[in-house]
């Protein structure tokens, strides 16, 4: 546990007794979650459907606000400040906490404009500056080589795997502090999946990354810290080597050995 239980100021993200519910309290999705994520680390959250892993992600950038009847108790801190605090500017929060979805959704624009959209929103107008940002983001997302000759053609003609890496580039271009990925490879072929995983491993030191997956094998491949969520509870958290070789909890063992989920 020690590896992922930092305290106080060294946490990038910290949940303290954080509970979350839908449907005006009818459905409890997270129960008193306590969890801390260090800056510059990658946490893989695995768990079956309904485990609350996606709810946790969508609380972090407050996308859950859009659903009527949600509620929470406890605290969810980013850099020690509650993301549900009164003074929080949600748009600003979402620029700091980027998100990649299961289904890649390129804007109906060119590849270049897709990546430049976020920086433009932030008020960057200079063409040269945008060029630099776009190229850097595409390179970091390991897609630049594939698209450099057609930056100005439609992003919707890219393959699924390319679109997903473009989505990552789009997030990177806004220069976020935290990157959330919600089953980013669930619609991809094995090869594209490996490329995304490889990209994430390269990015982990520069950002704080939270990856949600229902696939224990993916968690094992990435070899990061792993948290196992089950029915809205954090069952176990620790380095992948620990979780996959010596799970402390029976439920974790059942999940990684494929007994359920």
């Amino acid at each position: 546990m020690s590896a992922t239980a930092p305290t106080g100021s060294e946490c990038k993200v910290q949940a303290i007794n954080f509970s979350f519910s839908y449907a005006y309290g009818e459905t409890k999705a997270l129960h008193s979650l306590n969890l801390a994520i260090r800056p510059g680390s990658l946490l893989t959250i695995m768990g079956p459907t309904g485990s609350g892993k996606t709810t946790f992600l969508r609380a972090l950038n407050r996308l859950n606000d859009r659903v009527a009847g949600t509620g929470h108790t406890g605290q969810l801190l980013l850099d020690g400040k509650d993301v549900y605090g009164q003074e929080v500017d949600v748009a600003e929060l979402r620029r700091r906490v980027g998100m990649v979805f299961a289904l890649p959704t390129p804007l109906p624009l060119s590849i270049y404009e897709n990546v430049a959209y976020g920086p433009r929103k932030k008020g960057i107008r200079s063409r040269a500056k945008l060029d630099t940002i776009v190229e850097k983001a595409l390179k970091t997302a390991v897609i630049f080589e594939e698209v450099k000759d057609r930056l100005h053609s439609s992003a919707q003609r890219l393959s699924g795997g390319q679109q997903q890496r473009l989505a990552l580039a789009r997030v990177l271009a806004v220069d976020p502090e935290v990157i959330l990925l919600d089953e980013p490879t669930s619609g991809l072929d094995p090869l594209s999946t490996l490329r995304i995983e490889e990209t994430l491993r390269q990015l982990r030191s520069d950002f704080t990354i939270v990856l949600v997956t229902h696939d224990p094998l993916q968690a094992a491949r990435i070899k990061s810290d792993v948290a196992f969520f089950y029915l809205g509870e954090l069952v176990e958290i620790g380095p992948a080597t620990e979780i996959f070789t010596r799970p402390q909890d029976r439920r974790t063992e059942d999940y990684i050995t494929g007994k359920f989920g």
Partner: protein
Amino acid sequence: MRNKEKLVEILLTLIGLSSVTVLGLIILFIFKEGLPAFAQVGLWQFVTGTRWSPGKNLLGILPMIAGSFVVTAGALVVGLPLGLGCAIYLSEFATAKTAAILKPTIELLAGIPSVVFGFIGLTLMVPFIRNFFGGPGFSVLASALVLGIMILPTMVSVSYDALRAVPPVYREGMLALGSTDWQAVKMVVLPAARPGILAAAILAMGRAIGETMAVIMVAGNSTIIPTSFLDPVRTLTSNIALEMGYATGLHRQALFATGVVLFVIISILNLTARVVVRGKTR
């Protein structure tokens, strides 16, 4: 058992075909009744003639063709932005509760008989236009306003469905980048829903061009080509409805021929619109 299955299948096929058959018979009938007028007046003469005076055997329906076009276009200018705006509000900004009240209310508009719309136009809009803008009040403007409101339910509910059909993740992708709701709608949701919105516009246009009663009551119905929005106007449908009651001989055939022209125009519009929609969907 097997035989019963077969019987039901045949029965349903017949029922399915019957609606197509009815359409076929209608087309056959109006063409049969209308074609002699084309033969006698001359097709070109009929559709480009600017005088409609059945008593003197002057049978040109260009004023009515122009009237139908101008009134329909006016209705779309009024109804499309209103309807689309309403659909965007309902689908993207209203709370579930508000939408649950507003949407059925708007759909209720579709259930109001057109003669009631015409009556309201006649007693409110026509005097208003006469007093504030001049002219007789019975005008292109009055017809466009009445029709614009009448096409709202079609426009709203079809484009609302199109907007709702856009996967939520499209919006969320934008919001996650720090966009506002409106930016997400403008950049992603509207482009994604465009085919459906176009379909809504087509249906609305069909409704506008075909509407008869409400238009007769507020349009003034004089057979001249309107040169201003305040001029009275007669549409193709009005022309048929107004004169069919007493027409005989060539006059009667000419009214059926008006129907043929209307039918052809609507078919062409529908076809073009379908091609456009399909082109956008791919």
